[in-house]
């Protein structure tokens, strides 16, 4: 079985900003194809991979959603060889100055986001954060070359290479949510050795960061019996210590709250206890901010659950995740799927 870490690093390096997921989708398809029975793209670019179950038809199905889209930037204007930019997804402009990027023009161009000197800005930016509208991308090329190669609307990806840190952690951009894509890959590999009754739809969703577009459309098209969303959550660390943060490397989170069906949540929790997979309980009082917000209200409604992988410095180019948490989330999912009995859905009831 190919190793996880090199695959994850490849995933981080693959372009795939929201609704432009083509390159990363192709990479995931190549890795998943031998693990599934059918694989195809949805109309909006989500990757649908089906592993057929062993139960008699009509079989129930579980959809595992991991969004594959990345946040990034987009060219809004070209001036004297410099690129003005806007954001795709939620980017804190304060992490942008000095970031290496790739401009996806007529060819991929390396570049850097730059903060012009205060002497080039309106008064008031000697020390204050410089807003996105005044930041520029410099490709190092002469203006005429830039005019030839770059157009307004071209995408700009982060280019910080992944770094292996201590304690079997990895740092890089877009670990939100390629870490979960890697966990789903672990799950699919685990299922090679476990017969399962249910159909499994492994879905790498498109455009989560800009409004859960892939999850809502895939859930509608595939109409699964259950949906489990795998996404990253806030890890404790510098700048993050509140109740809504969780230890890095101490297991995934099992999320409870309005978006999650309590019985499905409890089934996952009971299984984690039984398998002695460490986890933390996470509370999402209203909307979870994940694909589950969409899957839950698709069609006539789909019981949904969320598993979180703790991640530091979310939406910066140096997000940090523990490899172990990815493996634990993948294993928990595989065991859960393997344990689904044909009548499991009858247990998804309201304990009133």
């Amino acid at each position, binding site marked *: 079985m190919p190793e996880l870490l090199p695959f994850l690093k490849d995933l981080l390096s693959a372009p795939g900003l929201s609704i432009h997921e083509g390159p990363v989708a192709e990479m995931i398809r190549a890795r998943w194809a031998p693990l599934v029975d059918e694989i195809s793209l949805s109309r909006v670019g989500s990757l649908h991979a089906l592993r057929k179950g062993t139960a008699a038809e009509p079989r129930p199905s579980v959809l595992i959603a991991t969004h594959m889209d990345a946040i990034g930037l987009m060219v809004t204007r070209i*001036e*004297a060889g*410099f690129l003005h930019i806007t954001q795709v997804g939620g980017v*804190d402009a*304060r*992490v942008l*100055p*000095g*970031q*290496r990027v790739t401009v996806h023009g007529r060819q991929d*161009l*390396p*570049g*850097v986001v*730059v*903060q*012009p*000197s205060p*002497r*080039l*800005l*309106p008064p008031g930016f000697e*020390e*204050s*954060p*410089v807003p996105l509208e*005044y930041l*520029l991308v*410099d*490709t*190092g*090329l*002469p203006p005429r*070359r830039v005019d030839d190669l770059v157009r307004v609307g071209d995408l700009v990806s982060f280019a*910080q290479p992944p*770094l*292996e*840190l*201590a*304690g*079997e*952690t990895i*740092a890089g951009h877009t670990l939100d949510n390629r870490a979960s894509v890697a966990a789903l890959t672990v799950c699919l590999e685990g299922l090679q050795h476990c017969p399962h009754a249910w159909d499994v739809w492994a879905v790498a969703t498109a455009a989560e960061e800009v409004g859960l577009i892939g999850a809502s459309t895939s859930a509608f098209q595939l109409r699964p019996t259950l949906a489990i969303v795998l996404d990253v959550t*806030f890890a404790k*660390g*510098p*700048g*993050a210590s*509140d109740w809504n943060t969780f230890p*890095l*490397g101490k297991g995934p989170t099992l999320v409870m709250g309005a978006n999650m069906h309590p019985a499905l949540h409890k089934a996952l929790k009971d299984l984690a206890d039984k398998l002695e997979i460490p986890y933390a309980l996470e509370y999402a009082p209203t909307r979870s901010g994940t694909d589950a917000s969409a899957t839950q209200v698709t069609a006539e409604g789909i019981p949904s659950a969320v598993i979180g992988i703790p991640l*530091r*410095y*979310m*939406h*910066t180019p*140096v*997000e*940090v995740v*523990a490899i172990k948490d990815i493996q634990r989330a993948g294993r928990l999912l595989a065991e859960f799927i393997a344990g689904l009995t044909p009548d499991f859905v009858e247990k998804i009831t309201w304990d009133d």
Partner: protein
Amino acid sequence: MPAIGNPQLRLLERLSNACAVSGDEGEVRKIVLAEIEGHADEVKVDALGNVLAVKKGSQRKRLRVMLSAHMDEVGFMLVADDGEGVFRFEVIGSIDPRQLPGKAVWVGRDHTPGVIGARPIHLTTAEERKRAIPVDSLRIDLGPGGKAKPGDRATFASPFRRLGPSLLGKALDNRLGVVTLIELLRNAPPNVDLLAAFTVQEEIGLRGAKVAAFALDPDLGIAVDATPAHDLPAWDGEPAPFYNTRLGLGPAIYVADRATLSDPRLVRWLTSTAESAGIPYQVRQPGGGGTDAGAIQRARAGVPAVSVSIPHRYPHTAASLARLDDWKNTLALLHTALSRLTPDVLAEER
């Protein structure tokens, strides 16, 4: 005539990727000592860690010319261990705190990778995002159990690369100057005694050059450095009046900065050399800033001094950017000027 080719670019790459924060220049010093071996009559490392190399000329009536290129760079020092591989740090040299969040760093002699993160945007308020993130709230995170210790230095983890006609790296300031000086030493013209000082602690107050200039006791001094280019479009689309220097216009000759008033005879010598040799040059806009020339000028009973710098954008960030042609022209100007230097230059009226 020395030139910048692939060997020089590879050396620049090694030097830009080396970590030599002010006060801890060992990694660059080691490379410099190896590169100049056999090219100088005397080499010594002084009490501060400056590398002083003397290449004597062979002609009569030679001036003793000190050329200074600082080896150190801005960076960080780990100052407290918060546990679990997380460290507090202080900034060394002038780095805009707004350049820190979301960056990878190399820590210590082994370049152990780490990151300076930032609170997730989801957990910040709009009000908070209007303020820069204070340095004392940031940490260097090596991952759980990461090994380092207070006192270790760190730099941005920012590998050198070429971008078309441009060069990108964390320490072009001043490894461009260091390679330039290595090439000048290797190709020293016979009409001068070339006193090469690869200095320390420039970024924290020109401290290495002060003692180097005393020890070398030159007739004149030239700082070879990198200077900011603020040649970007201004926010209102108007041409920027205070650009300092511009990329692509050649080496920047200093007339005045905060530390030095350049010796006018040396400025004339450099500009007339450039004009007669057809080498492009620009006069750096007078203003703030400072180079080793400031310390050299004040050494002993005073030394005529000037600076020649390679323009580069985004100084003291993870990714500064220079033009290869400007570097080539800087080396050409310095070598051509040194080759025609006679004591008459200093005999002129100021």
